[in-house]
């Protein structure tokens, strides 16, 4: 790991409340130079509060922050940054219409007598990218970069003021595995340069991969800080949730019944000759890289994109016209990957979001909505999925990612749907809520629904589903059951090239 033990930053008995809610209690923790310190905990455990105090967004109610041996207090993120604490958040916040160089020098543009000094700007930007070993062209527009590249530019920007402590808040949440690897290389390079890093993640594998020290937080308190090799995954989950977790994934019981979803030689712009089937009672996974076309399979099944060839059958008969409305009537429901953009209506309550796709069910006299019945049914479903906090009247944005996903998922329980299609069901979802979502999926299959899970998270596919397909370049390149349903067997198929001939 690291031989350096210099403590760069330290918090002493830090407390913070928002209104009547205690977000952080008595937090004392130290961050060492050249160390990747992982913060691990469910949403609402206090991780975000801690980093908001360290990066100067909020001020602590009591307690001290020691940085570089001095007791410091920040009036704004800018002050924190100038002292040497910078943060990079989950969603890149570059200005899309500006170039990489312009983004990197934003707010600190070098001037030559009141005019922009373009040469100095480029020099500064180049130096920032060199520091983290990136070769992204300076003249590229931010909007043309991949999310990983944007994240890299964010990191370069964060490190400009010779940062000594870099905070990374779920930087890989929306990255592919390949992009994540690139990012890890930069993290390791920075570790060698002696920078202290706070790394927030929900992914177990990442803790092992790059973490040196891990602090588990729960309910605003520090539960335990320990070296990563000294703790098992099982222990971490137990520390985080405060309860014994049998396993994240439910037992795979398979009891199929006739019917389900079938695709026969389906082709369109993104897909080539896709044939697959999901029987009722079965959970089937679809894996593949981002852009492989795996999400397009879900979209075509839900009627969001038309097919140019082939056919889709539901319970043995043709699926009919391609429109989400018609497919819902046929008993197909799709849970989109981007909850904010495609799933939730931010101005409607959690309850109204649940009932939107099945309002017909509550139409009564003269087709008026029976609002009381609607309310009772929606609340019962949300309670069954243990929405926390249980505020069916609140807007979706007041819930954590996991609970937002439960609101979307609740739509599937308003009616007995035959086919449930999940696209990235647990992206940005904490472990506690994740287990509940998996449980709900198995519940659906047990009751005789066909469940299709599209995911970039290979361990999720391997542990959750009965059978899986891998998609590459719009084609199905492999089908896996039984012993073949393992990360080792499946992963090579992700990188299948059209000219290669993998059987």
């Amino acid at each position, binding site marked *: 790991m690291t031989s350096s033990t210099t403590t760069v930053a330290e918090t002493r008995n830090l407390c913070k409340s928002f209104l009547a809610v205690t977000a952080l209690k008595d937090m004392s923790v130290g961050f060492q130079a050249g160390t990747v310190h992982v913060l691990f905990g469910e949403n609402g455990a206090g991780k975000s509060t801690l980093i908001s105090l360290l990066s100067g967004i909020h001020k602590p109610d009591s307690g001290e922050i020691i940085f570089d041996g001095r007791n410091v207090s920040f009036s704004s993120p800018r002050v924190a940054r100038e002292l040497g604490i910078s943060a990079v958040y989950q969603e890149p916040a570059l200005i899309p219409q500006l170039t990489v160089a312009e983004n990197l020098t934003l707010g600190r543009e070098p001037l030559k007598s009141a005019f922009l000094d373009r040469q100095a700007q480029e020099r500064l930007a180049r130096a920032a990218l060199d520091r983290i070993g990136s070769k992204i062209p300076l003249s590229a527009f931010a909007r043309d970069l991949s999310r990983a590249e944007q994240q890299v530019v964010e990191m370069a920007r964060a490190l400009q003021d010779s940062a000594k402590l870099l905070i990374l808040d779920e930087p890989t949440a929306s990255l592919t595995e390949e992009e994540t690897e690139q990012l890890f290389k930069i993290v390791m390079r920075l570790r060698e340069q002696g920078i202290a890093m706070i790394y927030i993640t929900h992914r177990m594998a990442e803790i092992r991969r790059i973490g040196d020290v891990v602090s588990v937080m729960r309910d605003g308190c520090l539960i335990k800080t320990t070296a990563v090799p000294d703790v098992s995954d099982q222990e971490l989950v137990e520390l985080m949730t405060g309860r014994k977790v049998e396993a994240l994934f439910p037992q795979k019981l398979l009891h199929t019944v006739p019917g389900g979803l079938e695709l026969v030689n389906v082709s369109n712009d993104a897909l080539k000759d896709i044939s697959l089937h999901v029987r009722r009672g079965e959970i089937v996974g679809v894996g593949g890289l981002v852009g492989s076309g795996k999400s397009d399979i879900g979209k075509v099944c839900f009627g969001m994109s038309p097919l140019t060839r082939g056919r889709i059958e539901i319970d043995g008969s043709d699926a009919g016209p391609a429109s989400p409305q018609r497919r819902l009537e046929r008993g197909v429901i799709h849970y989109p990957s981007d909850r904010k953009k495609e799933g939730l209506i931010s101005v409607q309550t959690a309850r109204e979001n649940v009932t939107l796709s099945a309002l017909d069910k509550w139409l009564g006299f003269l087709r008026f909505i029976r609002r009381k019945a609607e309310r009772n049914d929606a609340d019962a479903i949300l309670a069954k999925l243990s929405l926390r906090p249980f505020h069916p009247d*609140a807007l979706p944005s007041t819930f*954590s990612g996991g609970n937002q996903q439960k609101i979307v998922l609740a739509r599937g329980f308003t009616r007995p749907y035959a086919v449930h299609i999940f696209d990235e069901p647990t992206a940005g979802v904490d472990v506690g809520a994740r287990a509940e979502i998996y449980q709900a999926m198995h519940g659906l299959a047990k009751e005789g629904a066909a469940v299709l899970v599209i995911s970039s998270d290979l361990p999720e596919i391997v542990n959750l589903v009965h059978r899986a397909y891998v998609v590459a370049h719009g084609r199905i390149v492999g089908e896996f059951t039984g012993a073949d349903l393992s990360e080792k067997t499946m992963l090579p198929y992700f990188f299948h090239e059209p000219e290669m001939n993998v059987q």
Partner: protein
Amino acid sequence: MTTFTTTAEAKSSRPAPSNRAGTFFRRQFVIYGILPLLLVVLVAAFGWIEPRFLSYGNLINVSRQVSYLGIISLAQMLYLITRNYDLSNGATVALSSVSCALVMTNTFPDDPAMAIAAGLASTLVLGLVIGLMNSTLIAVYKINSFMVTLGVGSAATGVALLISGGTPVSGLPPAFARYFGGTSVMGIPLPLILFAVVIIAVYVLLNWTRVGRQAYAVGGNDHAAYQAGVNVKRTLFTMMVLGSLFAAFVGVILTARISTGEANIGLQYPMQSIIACVIGGIALSGGEGRVSGAVMGALFIVLLSNGMDLIRVQSYVQDILLGALLVLALLVDRLRARVRLKPV
């Protein structure tokens, strides 16, 4: 910051007795903004300064004015809920006024009842046509509603001026003005009764029907609504056609009031109805707003200008005040959005 509360805690959402009043006011503020308070202050202030403000005659006058603007504002609201503007409602009023007047004066010279029926039918068709034009361009061709309704409105005004020759259309059947303009039921003027009917209709539409709920969803996030199985185009068609029908309807009752068809009435309605809606808490960003808000917003504008007329405030000064109030309402709306994020 998201926080977890236990289910037991969450279920007892009843506030502690000590701050129950505070919670009550916060809830009212989140739902209605500061408008009810402003209305009370307004009525009290004008009533105190100028006793005529609260006289029966003035109240009847105000009730007529508020009926016209109120119906137009509810029509505007149907557009705004779906995150679209209607800048054509003033032209719809004008064209409706001219066309119904022309139809009445040129058909069935011997049968006023038939002439009135034909006039009403022509208005109905007009509202339908304008609503369909707006919604087709907006929902099918996905052109920005600001430009669509501006264009359609401009064209409709042109048609109104063209077919009326730029002069008021007079010679309407006397029965028309008598029944639609002057009738009172138990002292309540007919426009106010019609306004009440429209309020109830729009309230039921938005809160108790599927298409109403779906309209909020479409205005809030049309992508998500589409994926939740909402027929986005049909929803837009329904709301916009109804909105334009209501606007055309106002043209009829205004024509009855002034007994002539005018191509230049209603010019002020696009702006005034948007201001009424915004003051009433209907979000320009779509998906948010209550019927009571639009009604109170219209009432506020009418009371303000009526009161200022009575105490002889110059109309230029009135414009300044109205503009300032609009900005104030928008500022308060920002604050409200922030409070709203916390569960009530």
